[in-house]
């Protein structure tokens, strides 16, 4: 198998922009996307007319987004509104830049799910299981966590460690939606949604937008801030059980192992070298599956591993230092990639990881992806 190893440290993220996060019925996707784009352009100091590549994710129509921003790129890609797309999109942009299809790519993600009352289940997400009342990605994750409990004895108190750590980070992040402290008891007493999961195992649904600007490491030197380099990427899809949406009976363990092998080999590092983890957390169990699949702990050992604040800012593996999807913002992986950049630039304020040199993004989903970022 050929690999992408030759792209190590050749592509950079040079600009990032995020909007406020919350409930904004007054703003369209395009208005939010434009705010994030403007912030990212200012962040890297680029003339926006030099941007010749455009990736739109969850934005309803790429052409309208281009019209709004006055962009006529030579490379455009529309991604569907699925949570797993951010890593995929960043890898696609790498390829476009490497091949010369585009020199500067702006990737824009928008979400107006909160103000428009999106709820991810029922008739919004019709499936063949509807007659039995089985619906929503949360239910699929509840199915998997029940299996994790059965197989490994994992407890909901251990699961709570994930939500509690990310909430503590959100309290250090002025942009985060959630402002209230949370204890393990709060998690245990929260309203059940689809048991064994409770409200505090579910990600937020909020409005907002994110923009990331990428170019080659060489061109990046001429821009405002020190570039953040993409040192490794890995990918593996698992589609054979897709009719049960967001489900895998082995928690995507094989796909995560495969992705881990690729990303660590390309970057030339291992799990022990990671200063901070940005871990896709649509539901708290996904974090446990990710820790096992990427070798931060043994298979089935994520419950004991996260006990005692392992994922906290001062723990062994600071994870989702912005608060993640559970407590910062439901930007479907995009804000986690931005947080990786901000951490490596030293811009994360009260939640800054000390001596931060390598950050890993991980999304364990039917499209498992990982990206390792490092400082130039």
């Amino acid at each position, binding site marked *: 198998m050929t690999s992408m190893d030759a792209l190590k440290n050749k592509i950079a993220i040079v600009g990032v922009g995020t909007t406020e996060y919350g409930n904004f019925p007054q703003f369209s996707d395009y208005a939010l996307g434009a705010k994030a784009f403007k912030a990212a352009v200012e962040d890297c100091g680029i003339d926006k007319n030099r941007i010749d590549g455009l990736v739109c994710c969850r934005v309803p129509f790429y052409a309208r987004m281009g019209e709004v921003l006055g962009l006529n790129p030579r490379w455009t890609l529309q991604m569907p509104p699925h949570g797993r797309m951010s890593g995929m999109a960043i890898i696609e942009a790498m390829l476009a830049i490497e091949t010369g299809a585009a020199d500067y790519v702006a990737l824009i993600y928008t979400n107006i799910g909160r103000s428009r009352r999106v*709820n991810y*289940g*029922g*008739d919004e997400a*019709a499936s*063949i*299981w*509807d*007659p*039995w*009342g*089985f*619906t*929503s990605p949360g*239910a699929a994750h*509840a*199915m*998997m966590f*029940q*299996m994790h409990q*059965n*197989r490994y004895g994992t407890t909901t108190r251990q699961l709570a460690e994930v939500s509690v750590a990310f909430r503590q980070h959100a309290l250090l992040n002025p942009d985060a939606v959630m402002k209230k402290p949370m204890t393990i008891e709060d998690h245990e007493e929260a*309203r*059940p*949604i*689809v*048991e*064994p999961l409770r409200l505090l195992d579910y990600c937020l649904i909020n409005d907002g937008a994110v923009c990331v600007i990428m170019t080659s490491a060489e061109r990046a030197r001429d821009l405002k801030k020190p570039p953040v380099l993409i040192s490794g990427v890995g990918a593996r899809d698992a589609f*054979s*059980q897709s*009719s*049960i949406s967001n489900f895998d*009976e082995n928690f995507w363990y094989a796909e995560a192992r495969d992705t881990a092998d690729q990303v660590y080999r390309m970057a030339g590092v291992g799990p022990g070298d990671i200063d901070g983890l940005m871990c896709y957390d649509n539901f708290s169990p996904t974090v446990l599956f990710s820790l096992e699949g990427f070798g931060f702990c043994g298979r089935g050992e994520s419950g004991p591993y996260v006990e005692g604040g392992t994922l906290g800012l001062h723990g062994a593996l600071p994870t989702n230092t912005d608060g993640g999807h559970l407590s910062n913002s439901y930007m479907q992986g995009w804000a986690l990639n931005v947080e990786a950049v901000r951490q490596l630039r030293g811009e994360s304020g009260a939640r800054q990881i000390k001596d931060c040199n390598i950050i890993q993004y991980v999304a364990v989903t039917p499209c498992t992806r990982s990206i390792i970022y490092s400082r130039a």
Partner: protein
Amino acid sequence: MTYTKPLPPVDDLLMQPFWENARAHRLSIQRCEACGDGHFPPSPVCPHCLSEEQTWEPVSGRGTLLSWVTFHRAYWGGFIPDLPYQCCLVRLAEGPLIVANFAGDKPEYLAEGLPVRAVFQDMTEHFTLPKFVVEQS
């Protein structure tokens, strides 16, 4: 009384034989006539060999319990009276996975790997829902 829970969509032609078999109290999966692969949910071509020659085959209705969840939220109004209700995930003896409900109340003892068996509940005059009971050992 009108039935207020979701019905199988009438335009899902691929699943129609499954529901017709269920109406006759038979659980069925799709079988490839070319390579013999058994699969469910159905597919327009065999995912193994891509043959379009697919038939429906009644199966034993036996399987093992893989997982289960309890809904405390109703995504359709028709499920509100049932809250909280269970869904279960079963691996059929023939291989494929199916999501369904337990017939009757939630079984007292549940564990991954418990043997289960399909039973059939006529929900309307035209629509029967396969469900599962835990086999008494």
